[in-house]
């Protein structure tokens, strides 16, 4: 009967909307990541930076970069920046290190997660070398000085005079072992 087929059509259309919205929910995950990468809206800095053009350097402009180093939850490592602040000229390359020591009794793997405040400065903070690009594995008692090499983009808005880069160490020993981490 036409009534029944009309009903079936409507039902099928609605069921496909249900599936579509379920997929959309999951699609929000990469969409969110892309949005954040493009806008730097969640303070996360990107991957390794490759300079694509020569940067104009204003020698007179100085930006203060503060470094924070923290452990998350049960992470027991000693973790601190070798310097707390650096005054940098945007456009020039700078090097610094972070000291980490595994004081636990077993080998552990850590992942350093960066976060920049204010968030909108994140997209101007370029790292050419960073210990946060890979997981760091340290044996019991092992110590390491981890390098960070960065450039602040000269296009950083003039309103930003101080920028804080925070690293949080997370224990990913189990995640690394199961190979399921990103």
């Amino acid at each position, binding site marked *: 009967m036409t009534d029944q087929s009309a009903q079936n059509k409507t039902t099928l259309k609605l069921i496909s909307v249900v599936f579509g919205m379920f997929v959309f929910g999951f699609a929000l995950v990469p969409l969110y990541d892309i949005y954040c990468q493009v806008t730097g809206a969640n303070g996360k800095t990107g991957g390794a930076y490759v300079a694509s053009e020569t940067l104009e350097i204003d020698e007179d402009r100085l930006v203060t970069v503060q470094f924070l180093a923290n452990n998350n939850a049960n992470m027991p490592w000693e973790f601190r920046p070798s310097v707390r602040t650096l005054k940098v000229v945007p456009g020039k390359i700078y090097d610094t290190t972070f000291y980490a020591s595994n004081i*636990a009794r077993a080998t552990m793997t850590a992942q350093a997660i960066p976060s920049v405040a204010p968030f909108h400065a994140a997209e101007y903070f370029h790292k050419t070398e960073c210990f946060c690009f890979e997981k760091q594995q340290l044996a019991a008692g092992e110590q390491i000085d981890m390098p960070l090499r960065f450039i602040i983009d000269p296009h950083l808005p003039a309103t930003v005079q101080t920028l804080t880069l925070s690293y949080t160490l*997370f224990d990913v020993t189990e995640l690394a072992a199961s190979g399921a981490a990103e």
Partner: protein
Amino acid sequence: MTEKQSKLGANGQIRRIMRWLIAATALASSIQAFADWSALNMTKGVTEISRQVYDLHMLIFTICVVIGVVVFGVMIWSMLVHRKSLGAEPASFSHSTKLEYAWTIIPIFILVGMAVPATSTLRDMYDASGADMDIEVRGYQWKWQYTYLSDDPAQEVKFMSSLLTPADEYYNRTPKREHYLADVDNPLVIPINKRVRFLITSNDVIHSWWVPDFAVKKDAIPGFVHESWAVVEEPGIYRGKCTELCGKDHGFMPIVVKAVEQDEYDAWLAMKQQEALEVYETVGKTWTMAELMETGEQVYAQHCQTCHQANGEGIPPAFPSLVGQGLAIGPMDAHVDIVVNGKAGSAMQAFAAQLNPAEIAAVVTYERNAWGNDVGDMVQPRDVNALITGEE
């Protein structure tokens, strides 16, 4: 029927209108009176921003009250007058395009009127540049840690700030004193009239740092750092709260900020830096059992009791008992290790991040000898320190 209708003749209607106008005026003017009752209304606070926020709040609140009075006034009037029992006959109109336009467009103007000052205040709140000092605020389950960022990490002032109210008070065993649930052992101390930048993050779950008198509220998110700022204009003690559900003691991790004159702040900071140095140096001396037990009991009460309870019996299975079982009477090395490093997959945190070696040595010694455990041994701060730094 006609009698009743005549009672509501022109005079009656005018009298009713007058009564409503008087009531509305009284209400509007009493809003200002309510505005000062601290038990009823938001605080004006002690910063330029907090005053702007308060003014915005009173503006919107007043607009809402006026809208409410007008709309409810019309409704109540209608209920009193347009009744079947008074013989009212229902009118036959059921739409008016003009009215629909009017009550769509007029509210839009009112909303714009609210949005403009709100936008301006928000832009001010978001500009944390030009700070005189930076403080990292880190939320833990269930306390706060404050770090005064300085160029020399080894000399940095860093401390935990925990609820001071004892469990005896909130379990109703002793009377509740002033500042019940609003007092901490180590308040955050800041100078007045200086732009203080807060860098807010978390150690574990999402918390939120709120000081109403500053109109500063920012979520503390693990792995991320947020900035906020305040310039406090009046010296005083300002109390705040954690405002994001973070587990069992969400209601028991208050915030206390003490704003003082610059010279008092400088003296305090110097004293804290000296204390930090002294703590470091006490690691060098040898402690007696009595000293360890005394300090250990205090450390236990501040940092361990909330989970393991004052009598050491804990709340199994999440928070094990320390009485007559487990590592508390087991190998010393393992006992120190679990306090220093925590236990992955459980709520037992790595206390090396919160307690100095002397405090750890003291609390471990205390746990091994309290509650009838009486193991009889003790550990020195320098040994705990050696374990932490990996030196021998």
